[in-house]
């Protein structure tokens, strides 16, 4: 593939998702677009690109974008955030609000392991929070992964990464060669297709937002815009969980890093976007 085509495709992906395809990542284009080219009846990726250049095809552009997302995830990924949720965030939240609804959002939920891990954790902890009810929303730009997440079906390989076998026995049914989360866990999570480039404030207010391992794909202005929009959807001191390689530092002053709990940020009390501008 020539440099022009790479740039052209990278722009298609960036314009829709905000994902920056660096030069090193360009090699992924070939391996991921080859199956699309084949499926759509093109002889090569070059053919696909020249056709696309000749005639705008939004559906194709989205297929390409979807193919360039990285959906790697697993149950209880990195473990610490889930320990932090259990040991710090939930008790603190309870001290603040002893009754009512706690809304949690996984902003790039991929195939669902993250929100379902939270749902299993909440199930274990529920007796400590009798007054609170929890509602989990998972969104992702890729319809493909959202559909898989909704199904709650995982391969033998997937259920063996990060999930203790006791949880497998407790929360899953075996369905042929796959494992399916039981209805009581599945019903705790609502999945929707959702693009972080769009105005997602209509999802409502959230006490806790997990936005892990997705900002890494964006440039600085995009990260800042998303974080500040999230801040407008949270109460003062609401909790933001980022991935191990992600930070708010240098991007926005809407969040404070929490002193004792690494990777958890709290929404700055009284912050408004106007003030930041």
């Amino acid at each position, binding site marked *: 593939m020539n440099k022009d085509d790479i740039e052209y495709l990278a722009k298609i992906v960036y314009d829709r998702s905000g994902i920056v395809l660096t030069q090193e990542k360009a090699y992924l284009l070939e391996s991921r677009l080859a199956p699309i080219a084949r499926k759509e009846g093109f002889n090569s990726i070059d053919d696909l690109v020249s056709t696309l250049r000749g005639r705008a095809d939004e559906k194709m552009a989205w297929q390409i974008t979807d193919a360039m997302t990285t959906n790697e995830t*697993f149950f209880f990924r990195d*473990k610490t955030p889930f320990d932090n949720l259990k040991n710090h965030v939930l008790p603190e939240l309870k001290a603040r609000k002893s009754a009512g609804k706690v809304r949690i959002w996984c902003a790039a939920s991929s195939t669902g392991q993250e929100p379902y891990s939270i749902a299993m954790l909440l199930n274990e902890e529920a007796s400590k929070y009798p007054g609170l009810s929890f509602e989990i929303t998972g969104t992702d730009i890729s319809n493909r992964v959202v559909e898989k997440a909704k199904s709650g079906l995982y391969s*033998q*390989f997937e259920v*063996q*990464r*990060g999930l*203790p*076998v*006791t949880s*497998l*026995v407790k929360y899953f049914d*075996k369905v042929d060669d796959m494992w399916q989360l039981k209805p009581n866990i599945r019903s705790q999570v609502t999945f929707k297709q959702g693009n972080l480039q769009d105005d997602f404030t209509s999802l409502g207010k959230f006490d806790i937002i997990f936005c892990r391992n997705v900002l890494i794909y964006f440039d600085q202005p995009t990260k800042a815009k998303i974080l500040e929009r999230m801040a407008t959807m949270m109460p003062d001191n609401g909790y933001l969980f980022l991935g191990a390689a992600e930070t708010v530092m240098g991007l926005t002053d809407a969040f404070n890093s929490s002193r004792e709990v690494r990777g958890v940020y709290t929404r700055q009390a009284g912050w408004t976007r106007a003030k930041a501008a």
Partner: protein
Amino acid sequence: MRSCLVVDDSRVIRKVARRILEDLEFKIEEAADGMEALTACRGQMPDMVLLDWNMPVMNGLDFLKALRQEPGGDKPVVIFCTTENDLDHITQALENGANEYIMKPFDGDIIEAKLAEVGLV
């Protein structure tokens, strides 16, 4: 260095497991069936046992039951590693004192993930 007894009647599987576990800094002993494994444990209790289910002479479950009766036999962390992949087998293993359970085929990622579950890495 932590020790691991790899119990499997397949030499190939033992070799694969050995390579993965040695990379994770375990000292490896091998046994080809439950009886050999029990003898090895009576000599010296390992920190961990990676245990196949179906083997000649003594199968994995019978070995596990016997091990847990031995003096000091409650110590080793036992991780099943077997093609048996239905809930009945898993439940039986847990009820008889297994700490974790790997369904074959496995790879380094799965072994490492399971060792993390039991606090060995």
